[in-house]
């Protein structure tokens, strides 16, 4: 590793920590925006004033804001995200730990489905640029981009569950229960819903890059040698056309998390989305705070990783730093 790389890494890490600190301040100040007294929210109305005062004392609600923030941040750094204020008042961190794998599975599966469908579609579309198939695919992907994920999910449920009866509606099977097939059977439809928008995005971007690549001389040479179109597309054109797609993978992460949240709520899956939506509608702010913090952390770290690895994927960006 050269000195420049180390310096870049250090700067990136410093920025990362700064961003996370600001996010944590923002997340913490949700409590400040909270209307009403948290003590009343926890105990419910109708208790003697001394009970509220005692709870406020116990929760440290009477301390100055800075003290409370530092106290809270200290807990967070030790993995203690507080307790839910809605019964059953479990620990936030243990709930997050049980919810996170479900969301991660849906998101990863959705991304895979999107890639598996988008790459052949884009290749077909780009190879027959301007043809009927290309026009149908382009119009279709543009249309799909205008369908919000909750609407797409409802339509898929209508079609696949209610009309065709191919998939079960709910009752999530955990991966840890060992029933991989049952788990996939339940996860497929939510993952497909999440995949739809990404699929449209990926197809459009990859198609655009492929069309440019297919005009290159070496493609013409391969064609002149009589290579099969499929071989040219897969072996020669795909790799140099996929850089924008890789960048897009990072950019689509935020949208992916958003649609995963909605889809989990829609299919009643026990993931982060259901957790955070239910907590939000009950005003259970410690759970929301914990979930937002964890999601932001994952989001920022993955994005930073993609930024950094980009130099390794695309040699052209590497030369600039050397």
């Amino acid at each position, binding site marked *: 590793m050269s000195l420049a790389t180390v310096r870049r890494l250090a700067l990136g890490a410093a*920025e990362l920590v*700064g*961003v*996370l600190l*600001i*996010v944590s301040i*923002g*997340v913490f100040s*949700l*409590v400040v*925006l*909270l*209307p009403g007294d948290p003590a009343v929210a926890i105990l419910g109305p109708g208790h003697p004033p001394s009970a509220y005062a005692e709870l406020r004392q116990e929760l440290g609600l009477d301390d100055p804001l800075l003290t409370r923030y530092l106290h809270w941040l200290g807990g967070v750094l030790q993995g203690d995200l507080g307790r839910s204020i809605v019964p059953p008042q479990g620990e936030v961190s243990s709930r997050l730990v049980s919810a996170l794998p479900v969301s991660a599975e849906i998101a990863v599966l959705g991304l895979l489905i999107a890639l598996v469908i988008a790459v052949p579609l884009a290749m077909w579309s780009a190879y027959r640029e301007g043809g009927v198939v290309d026009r149908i695919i382009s119009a279709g992907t*543009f*249309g799909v*981009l*205008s*369908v*919000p*994920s*909750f*609407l797409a999910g*409802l*339509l898929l*449920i*209508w079609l696949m569950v*209610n009309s065709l009866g191919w998939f079960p509606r709910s009752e999530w099977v955990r991966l840890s229960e060992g029933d991989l097939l049952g788990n996939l059977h339940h996860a497929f439809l939510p993952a497909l819903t999440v995949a739809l928008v990404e699929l449209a995005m990926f197809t459009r971007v990859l198609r655009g890059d492929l069309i440019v690549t297919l005009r290159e001389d070496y493609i013409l040479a391969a064609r002149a040698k009589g290579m099969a179109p499929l071989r040219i597309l897969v072996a020669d054109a795909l790799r140099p056309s996929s850089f924008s797609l890789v960048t897009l993978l990072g*950019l689509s*992460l*935020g*949208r992916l*998390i*958003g649609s995963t*949240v*909605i889809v989990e*709520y829609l299919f009643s899956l026990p993931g982060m989305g259901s957790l*955070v*939506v239910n*907590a*939000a*509608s009950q*005003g*259970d*702010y410690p759970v*929301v*705070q914990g*979930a*937002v913090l964890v*999601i*932001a952390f994952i*989001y*920022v770290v993955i994005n930073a990783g993609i930024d950094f690895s980009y130099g390794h994927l695309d040699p052209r960006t590497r030369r600039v730093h050397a």
Partner: protein
Amino acid sequence: MPDIAPRTRTAFPLPLLYAAAFVVIGLALLVYGATTTALIPPAKVLLALTGLGLLMNGAARLGKAWAGPDFDIVFWFAAAWLVLLGLAALLAPWLPLAEERDVAATVTEPVFETPTFTGAHPLGTNGFGLDLLARSLHGARSSLLISLSAVLVGTVVGGAIGLVAGYLRKTLDRAVGLATNSLLAVPPLILLIALATVLEPSLRNVALSLALLTVPSMVRLSRATTMAYTNREFVVAARAMGAKRSRIMLRELLPNVLLPITSLAIVMISVLIVAEASLSFLGLGIQPPEPTWGNMIAEGEGRVFKEHPHIVLVPGAFLFLTVFAFNIVGEKARRRWDPRSVKL
């Protein structure tokens, strides 16, 4: 000398006659497919879609003959939809619509009536006998009001911050950059949900949360554009002539920053409409009885959708068409005003 072929003109433009016939037949099929009661639903849908296809094809040919080969029929359809919807939403309280909110007034109305495009309830009614057309138009009212005002506030605030930060640079720019990155560090919908946890779900609060969502990308675009223009000749000349910083920002830079920002704003409108609808769908946005597309779609959850698909399909169609139309218009604006692709 370019090769110019002499154009042969037929005495009567036969293709135009075909195009006009397409429009007429398409329109007839569309209306018949939508309103007939003699056919089963799939056949109706097929008929209506065929009609729509013919109509679009014919209209595209007519348009191209009239306005040249650059005529974009989809764009005009999108623009027409937005204008119509905007007018209907604006005038909704004064239009002769059935009851959209008060369930006490609809005790005698039929419930779950399917859309027939005719009669007292052209788009049907929901489980309380409330009229879906009226609800959809009132939903458009709040949806458009929220997203347009949010985009306006977000664009003005974000654009101004980006302009100042991009021109003055130094510490201010670094602080703004860190704040922007921190806002972007929380995925949009998660940010909205977090704010919805603590804020009262009123029209104003939802609009403000959505405005906050638009600020960071606006700051980025405005800052980048400002920086690209700061060293151009006319800015340097203005500075050399002793123009004040405020004058350079307002008279030299702002006009150039305005166009790219406007095209991003149009794209943002559709993003915000979806975000608002998602929030209402999750039950965290505008609350019933106030109708919005999101909470209307949420009414169809579970068995209701299976038995009465129009409960979801009617507001879903409004939502889709509006988002689609804003995307088409936004795409066109972006191509015209901002050649560099804008990353949201």
